[in-house]
């Protein structure tokens, strides 16, 4: 009986058999590595948690900056000049002025906010309704909200600002450009800081995984020695540790994603309430699919690199004696 079977074995191995053998070997190594992580739940969870937090931190910062960018993008189009007119300007004069200004090529539109409308709005929004009723006269001036054309440059905006201020009816002109520009600069700095922080944290993950793998190698030193003694190549000995790194990275990445999503979920409500207060149609941006995969990919990549470095470094020292 055995003779029949061994004659089968003498035939050249078929390609599919070899491929599926390769697949089976890798799968079993991967499962075994997962099993080792599972059998030490506390230590493994610590490692995974550290990786997750380390990944979640820059990811969360990124989401914050991303939302800030999207808000400020809507401000870019709404760089309005509020021209407060002198209180003695009549509504008729104001209407005429609005007409004249809106004729200009460098102006997109002019909206007139009369003193009465302004007072009504203020009464509704401020909550000072009754106190305002005590006033004999309306203290608010008529206002022109001037939206410059998109074609304006920074210089022409400056000139426009000056011109509007020099109008005889104008009391003063308020522009928010400076503030927006500063905000953009801050965002740019934040973005770069996040990138730098993420790089440092990435190195930290390499160290964490490397250290975990180093401990694992130490614990399995005897096994490595024996397998090398009976002909295991470095690649063979390294493989289970690479899978360990892979699992740490993958689970860490998934947990990081979970943390970020939970954080966003917890923030979504107050954020939309804040947006409501500013009367803005603001959509809270979460992580998109690409970014989610990037986080997981970073986890897996760092896991593999960290374990590869550790395994290669420490394995070389373990030679049979």
């Amino acid at each position, binding site marked *: 009986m055995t003779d029949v*079977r061994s004659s089968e*074995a003498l035939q050249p*191995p078929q390609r599919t058999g070899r491929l599926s*053998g390769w697949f089976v070997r890798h799968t079993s190594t991967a499962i075994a590595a997962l099993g080792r992580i599972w059998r030490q739940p506390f230590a493994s969870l610590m490692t995974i948690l550290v990786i997750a937090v380390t990944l979640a931190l820059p990811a969360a910062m990124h989401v914050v900056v991303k939302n800030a960018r999207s808000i400020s993008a809507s401000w870019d189009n709404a760089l309005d000049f509020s021209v407060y007119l002198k209180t003695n300007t009549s509504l008729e004069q104001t209407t005429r002025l609005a007409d004249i200004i809106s004729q200009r090529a460098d102006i997109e539109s002019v909206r007139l906010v009369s003193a009465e409308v302004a007072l009504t709005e203020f009464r509704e929004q401020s909550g000072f309704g009754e106190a305002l009723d005590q006033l004999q006269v309306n203290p608010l001036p008529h206002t022109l909200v001037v939206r410059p054309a998109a074609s304006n440059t920074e210089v022409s905006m400056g000139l426009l600002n000056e011109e509007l201020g020099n109008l005889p009816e104008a009391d003063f002109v308020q522009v928010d450009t400076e503030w927006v520009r500063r905000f953009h600069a801050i965002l740019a700095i934040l973005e770069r800081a996040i990138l730098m922080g993420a790089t440092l944290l990435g190195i930290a993950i390499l160290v964490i995984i490397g250290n975990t793998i180093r401990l694992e190698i130490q614990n399995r030193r005897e*096994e490595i020695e024996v397998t090398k*003694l*009976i*002909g295991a*190549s470095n690649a063979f000995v390294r493989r289970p540790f690479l899978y360990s790194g892979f699992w740490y990275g993958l689970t860490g990445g998934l947990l990081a994603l979970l943390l970020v999503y939970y954080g966003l979920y917890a923030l979504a409500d107050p954020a939309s309430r804040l947006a409501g207060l500013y009367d803005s149609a603001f959509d809270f941006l979460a992580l998109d699919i690409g970014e989610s995969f990037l986080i997981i990919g970073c986890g897996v990549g760092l896991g593999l690199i960290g374990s590869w470095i550790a395994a290669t470094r420490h394995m070389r020292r373990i030679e049979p004696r």
Partner: protein
Amino acid sequence: MIRIEDVTKLYPGGHDALRGLTLRVDTGEMVFVTGHSGAGKSTLLKLIALIERPTSGRVIVDGVNTRNITRRRIPAYRRQIGMVFQDHKLLYDRPVFDNVALPLVIAGIGHREAARKVRAALDQVSLLNKEKQFPETLSSGEQQRVGIARAIVSRPKLLIADEPTGNLDPDLSLEVMRIFRRFNEVGVTLLIASHDIALIDQLGCGRIALEKGALQIEQEEDVVSEYMERLEAEQEGGL
């Protein structure tokens, strides 16, 4: 199969384990290396397994000068040699079957074929019924037989064993030696380091006695004369 030519092995610290040793083991032979501890038995086997490299001289195994085997190619080289150790060197976190299958797993042999070979190897050491047990639950003699099964599972042409009966009582030792004998009968070359001279005499195999890293004097004469005879025989055959 094995040719050791004028091999010297110096360990750091000046201790010389082998001094100008020359010997030869032919294909199909079963040869014992004897000698006191420190005579160089283990060193000789380590040189063949490429765990150590000779300080000088040549170690030729199956026609290949081991000097030409680079670090990267050592694993493939070792896979062609079966090795048995005094302390078994089993992996205690996995059952007998997995231990014996390890060389096949390393060689990348498919699961079904591996299972068949493992069972065949276990059958040869009469441990077929223990494949699911963990090594710790086995007796020392059984553990050694697991080690032997692992050494022969990929059917090597050469098997080297370092004190395989060192920890076994006489009955178990004889059992192990009988197993080796059976391999020899199917053509495996064996080189076994042992100090159990009584047992070796019982088996009636070739014997190389080492003393302080060289052949024992009286033995050397035997070996040399035998070597000369063999050379003459070869020359006559050639003519």
